């Protein structure tokens, strides 16, 4: 177990700068996720940490030790790849044994035929380690098979096994679940979290799937265009995003944004003041973000709120996403409603849209979130500064 620090990391490939002065502190034993759209630099950051890529600038520390000049294999990290990267010509057991052999045996002992005879005891010990790991992952019966004979989930486990045998200080995972089918993916999420808990080792996990990031991590770093935009717990990222960009990236369906006006400490939407208070010095246009689950849709008869028209309904079984066009189609909102929750609308219905102001997020013109004092129900602010 070791803490990891990446300081001022910059990296460019040719003319394109992939990482721009990134700082990241990873606590010992935590499950940290790097999440962002493709091309945001998250994989490059992971590969720099792994030692597979050299940064143009910056410093990598693992357990306080400077690691820039240390080879990938000597950083004592293990990596699980998106394509699993199992050696196709070796059995699962041989795959798992490879890192151990390369670390613990001399060149002569690794030689085919001669090696196993010379160092029979060592081989035995290594096989013991492999078997113990296989037992934890419940893949003992797969040890003799080759990767081509395994299903996707089994390959995933074998790849995990190869990472685990060497007892690394941290696991690096690059989209390890994206090649699995939906059902297995959800199942493996839970398994990985349990594995993390039982091993107690640092996990650094890269994904583009916000659901994975939200469900699995202790903390998640939202990346975009080579920057870390916010590093926080999933809960705080979701409820208190630093910027409108983060708010838009995290959360499905995407957060609804209303264009409002701030003046004299209050925010007005469509001419009406909302029951919340902002910095009185602020004036001008603001963005008002409201999550789908906080949007209320009511029959048009009730006068309060904004009037709109139902354009489309997505029935997901447990929930219904109700798409509403406001201001003659200039703005589109999505509300999440419990299915069969009493209220139901038809496409084309005239409706009123309201939201609970205590859940509204106010973003300034530059996209940064503004501190808000809700008149209705103040919520204690507990934000760690990244």
């Amino acid at each position, binding site marked *: 177990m070791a803490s990891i620090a990446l300081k001022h990391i910059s990296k460019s490939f040719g003319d394109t700068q992939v990482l721009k002065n990134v700082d990241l502190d990873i606590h010992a034993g935590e499950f940290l996720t790097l999440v962002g759209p493709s091309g945001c630099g998250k994989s490059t950051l992971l*590969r720099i940490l*792994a*030692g*597979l890529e050299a940064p143009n600038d910056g410093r990598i520390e693992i357990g306080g030790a400077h690691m820039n000049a240390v*080879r*990938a*294999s*000597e950083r004592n*990290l*293990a*990596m699980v*790849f*998106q*394509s*699993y*990267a*199992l*050696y*196709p*010509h*070796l059995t699962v057991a041989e795959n798992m044994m*490879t*890192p151990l052999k*390369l*670390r613990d045996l001399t060149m002569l002992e690794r030689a085919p035929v001669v090696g196993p005879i010379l160092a029979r005891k060592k081989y035995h010990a290594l096989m013991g380690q492999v078997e113990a790991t296989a037992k934890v992952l419940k893949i003992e019966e797969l040890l003799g098979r080759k990767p081509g004979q395994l299903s996707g989930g089994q390959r995933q486990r074998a790849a995990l096994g*190869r990472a685990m045998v060497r007892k690394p200080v941290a696991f690096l995972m*690059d989209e390890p679940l994206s090649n699995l089918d939906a059902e297995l993916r959800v199942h493996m999420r839970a398994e990985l979290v349990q594995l993390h808990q039982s091993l107690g080792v640092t996990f650094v996990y890269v994904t583009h799937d916000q659901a994975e990031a939200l469900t699995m991590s202790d903390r998640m770093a939202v990346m975009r265009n080579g920057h870390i935009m916010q590093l926080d717990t999933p809960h705080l990222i979701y409820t208190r995003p630093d910027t409108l960009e983060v708010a838009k990236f995290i959360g499905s369906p995407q957060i609804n944004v209303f264009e409002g006006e701030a003046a004299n400490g209050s925010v007005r939407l469509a001419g009406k003041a909302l029951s919340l208070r902002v910095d009185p010095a602020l004036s001008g246009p603001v963005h008002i973000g409201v999550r789908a689950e906080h949007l209320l849709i009511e029959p048009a008869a009730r006068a309060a709120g904004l009037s709109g028209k139902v354009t489309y309904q997505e029935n997901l079984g447990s929930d219904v996403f109700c798409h509403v066009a406001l201001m003659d189609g200039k703005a589109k909102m999505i509300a999440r409603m419990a299915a069969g929750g009493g209220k139901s609308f038809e496409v084309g219905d005239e409706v009123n849209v309201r939201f609970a102001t205590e859940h509204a997020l106010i973003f300034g013109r530059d996209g940064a979130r503004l501190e808000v004092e809700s008149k209705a129900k103040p919520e204690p602010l507990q934000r760690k500064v990244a």
Partner: protein
Amino acid sequence: MTDTTLSAPARTERVTNFRFSATETLKHVCLILGAVIVLLPFYVMLSYSFKSPSEIMTNTGGFFGAQELFRDDYCIKLGNEVADCMVKPWIYNYTTAFSKAPLLRYLMNGVIVTASIFFIQVLVALPCAYALAKLRWRGRETVFSLVLFCLLIPVHAIALPLYIMLAKLGLTNTYAALIVPWTISVFGIFLMRQFFMTVPDDLIDAARMDGMSEFGIIWQVMLPTAIPALLAFAIFSVVAHWNDYFWPRIVITGTRELFTPPLGLREFKGDADGDNFGPMMATATVIVTPLIVAFMLAQRRFIEGITLTGMK
């Protein structure tokens, strides 16, 4: 109305069905005719290798010949009894093939030369292909263009200057002369590079994380994953060099110890008279058989290997 629309498709189907079998028969007739012409020399070769000189001259005896004992004049010349010198034609033909010229030696030379060529080709091409496919370095594109350019050059076409260079180095009439010009297979580099491009980068990164050196990656990760492509290339290379006649003809002059199988056969032909047709055909059979048998056993792989050039 309904009737006509219903019956129309039924009728066309019957017609096409009938036509189908007719054209199929016609095709078979043509293909069999072709097969007869293609197989003719193989038939002649095999058949004559079984027959006695007189049967060859008179074209009698069917495929195997009558296999009547005949007198081996050479044996009598050596002073043996006539009764001891009566041999079955096919035994005579094949024993003469092996005894009159050191055919075994030729075959061994063929094996040595083709095996060394393939071995060195792989040794040179694999690392280069790996560097071209999977490493990032300055000048990579230039080197790859060089490879693409060299693909244009058929080695047979530059045989003359190569011969002069080898002669200047005093290397003619050596194994080196047979092997050296073929040690670089630009096609092999190109082929393996194309194959390596399809190997996921993750696999190489995983090997690096496991602590493998770049050199180890080539031989322990890339080589095993490339076995199918390598096998195809092996067949391509072995067939080309086992059967090659032009190059050995140029650089090997006189020294029988270095003759490859085709050269041996050519020499046989040079001093063949009527009596030697049988043994000569036996020699030809012996030379052609290994590849044909291997081809019969692993047809799909062979066709794959030989048509590899199609990937260019």
